[in-house]
């Protein structure tokens, strides 16, 4: 708004990234959101205190708590903890610094109806984009392009969020397979493999490149990446360069197709900038409240950098006719004509998720208990 207060000259904020800030994925998306904030609010260049690779493998000697301490000591008046992995740490830190507003992206600690609600942490808010839609689009693009009818999803670890995203991609794929490709939905193959973490920690997670190889080996021709880094697109790009009819859909970061443009069908990405600007503005105006925000795309222009929380950019790999269908699909989603979380839908184990005509609530979607019927892959540890 125009009545926004000016940011004080010495305003600083902390940005805690789980991966490398230049990972072409999740962490870079947050990092660039930070830069966007600095630019939008006209903050000094050094206003953002960044620490990347904050995870037990890369920084055994540091904990989220101590990083927050350091950032506060360094003058940060607001903290962004940008990974689901940081739950324990950021909640502890929020308790220790009740006067410092913090955002835990992708979390649910501020959702009054949520399972993880922490009423006591009035300084810890959550922001998440409704990536479901972008993943539906991704699934659709995959289904529109696939020749073998076998789609693969490179999953990170298993939790509510990741199950939610896999389900969405699957729903999008099945819809387009049925309605645009006019195929029997039961003929669509959709397999997910989990590497065990948001990105590859050799020795501890599966090697995403290896998993991608296995996907291709088993006949899948579109690999949808759900992890923070770009192994899938890189590996598929190699195969594509070797004249194989295979494509990939990276994740998280708008520029992720760059790794192998020709083999890229497009990328569903987060655009954290606008929401972070709002959050910080509220801090500057001293109006911060610990709220849980789950922000959808700006359906007028899902790629508007100043309004849309999530987006989709199509890649060179997508054929003209496919992108025509895709635009139609996107329009349908936007207008609400296409509602994919509507029953009948069953969980993977056959139990009922949504009865005929029933529409899923945010709660049901967010806390996806299982993968959906028709998806091959593990729903949980056991």
């Amino acid at each position: 708004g125009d009545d926004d207060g000016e940011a004080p000259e010495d305003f600083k904020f902390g940005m805690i990234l789980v991966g490398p800030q230049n990972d072409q994925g999740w962490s870079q998306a947050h990092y660039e959101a930070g830069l966007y904030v600095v630019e939008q609010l006209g903050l000094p260049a050094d206003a953002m205190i960044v620490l990347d690779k904050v995870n037990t493998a890369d920084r055994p000697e540091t904990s989220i708590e101590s990083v927050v301490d350091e950032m506060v000591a360094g003058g940060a008046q607001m903290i962004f903890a940008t990974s689901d992995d940081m739950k324990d740490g950021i909640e502890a830190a929020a308790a220790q610094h009740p006067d410092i507003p913090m955002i835990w992206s992708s979390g649910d600690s501020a959702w009054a109806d949520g399972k993880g609600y922490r009423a006591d942490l009035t300084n810890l808010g959550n922001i998440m984009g409704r990536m479901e839609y972008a993943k539906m689009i991704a699934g659709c693009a995959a289904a529109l392009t696939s020749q073998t009818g076998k789609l693969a999803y490179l999953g990170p670890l298993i939790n509510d969020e990741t199950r939610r995203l896999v389900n969405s991609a699957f729903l999008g794929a099945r819809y387009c397979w049925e309605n645009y490709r006019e195929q029997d939905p039961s003929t669509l193959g959709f397999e997910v493999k989990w590497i065990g973490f948001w990105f590859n920690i050799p020795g501890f997670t599966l090697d995403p490149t290896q998993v991608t190889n296995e996907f291709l080996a088993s006949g899948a021709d579109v690999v949808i990446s759900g992890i923070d880094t770009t192994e899938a697109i890189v590996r598929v790009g190699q195969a594509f360069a070797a004249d194989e009819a295979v494509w990939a859909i990276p994740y998280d970061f708008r520029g992720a197709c760059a790794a192998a443009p020709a083999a890229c069908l497009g990328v569903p990405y987060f655009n954290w900038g606008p929401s972070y600007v709002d959050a910080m503005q509220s801090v500057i105006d001293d109006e911060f409240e610990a709220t849980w925000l789950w922000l959808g795309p700006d359906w007028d222009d899902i790629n508007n950098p100043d309004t849309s929380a999530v987006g989709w950019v199509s890649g060179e790999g997508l054929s003209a006719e496919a992108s025509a269908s895709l635009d139609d699909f996107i329009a349908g989603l936007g207008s609400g004509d296409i509602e994919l979380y509507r029953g009948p839908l069953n969980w993977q184990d056959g139990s009922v998720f949504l009865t005929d005509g029933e529409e899923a609530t945010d709660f049901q979607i967010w806390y996806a208990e299982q993968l959906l019927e028709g998806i091959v892959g593990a729903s949980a540890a056991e």
Partner: protein
Amino acid sequence: MKRLRSAPLALAAALGAIVVILFAAGAPPLEAMRVIFEGAFGTTDRLGATLMAWTPLVLAAAGLLITFQAGLWNIGVEGQIAMGAIGAAWMARSVEGPSLVVVPLTLIGGAVFGAAWALIPAWLRTRFRVHEIFSGVALSFVAAAIAVYLIIGPWSRTGVASTSGTDIFDPRAWLPTIGSWRASPVGIGAAVAAVAAVLVLLRGSRFGLRIRAVGRNAESAHLLGIPTQRYLVAAFAMCGALAGIAGTVQATGFHHKLVPSISGGYGFLGVLVVLLAGFRALWIAPIALFFAAIQVGSTQLSLRLGIDSSLAGVIQGALVLVVLIVGGFQVYSAARGPVVTGEGEA
């Protein structure tokens, strides 16, 4: 002796190397060193963080000193730390009760698991003559695998299969701390005690004397009536126990949960510490503190100078290498026999 004489020269060379590296990294050397120092000791919190890293490091190093004196390359220490953490986590997860009960149990559990894990390479070495380096490395990976298995399997958070770790332990199982200080006096106490014990053991006790005898010349030791194999096994077990306590500190004192990379690399770093200390117990603690300071302080490099913190490891490694090689040159120029690692007064 020899190392003492080489120390100044080596330090000069090492500093030179570090400066070169810093320049290569486009960092103002003096500024960088100051930032690291402040980052490690600038505030009480930072001092706490440094001691938090020092604790497992010095525990591992103290244990390694025993195995080195016995002529063993216990590279498997990483796995022994991980196993210790698993043992501690097991205790923390399964035992309900006040800190006074649970904390000692976690420490014992860690020590026992670590020692047990160390007995495997000991057994392979004494019974099958399998070199401890290879069995050790292998077992470290196996231990890590077991940790990951527990984290995403039996001990996983409900509905979650993430290598980000198990649920937080019940705070009563945490190593107790004072105020906002993260370093636990219990952990630090354990570390100090361990160093003191090893010092006494290796320098003062008949046991230590025999360990050194076995490490230097097993055949002579046998002739003198020392049951050499038993001493090798004992050395492994002790190192394993100390490593296990290090793992406990990592799990219940630092992460407060079990994570895959629980060892934090302090085992390998411990080897560097012992090598740099020239196998002398007295030097373990200060050198470990120095390394921990570099480790922790380097976070400030990222925060303040935008320099990647892995510079810490570069400095540590370069330091030891340069000291080793300078020492080698001195022996070489003194035209003496081969330098056998494992020698040098304890």
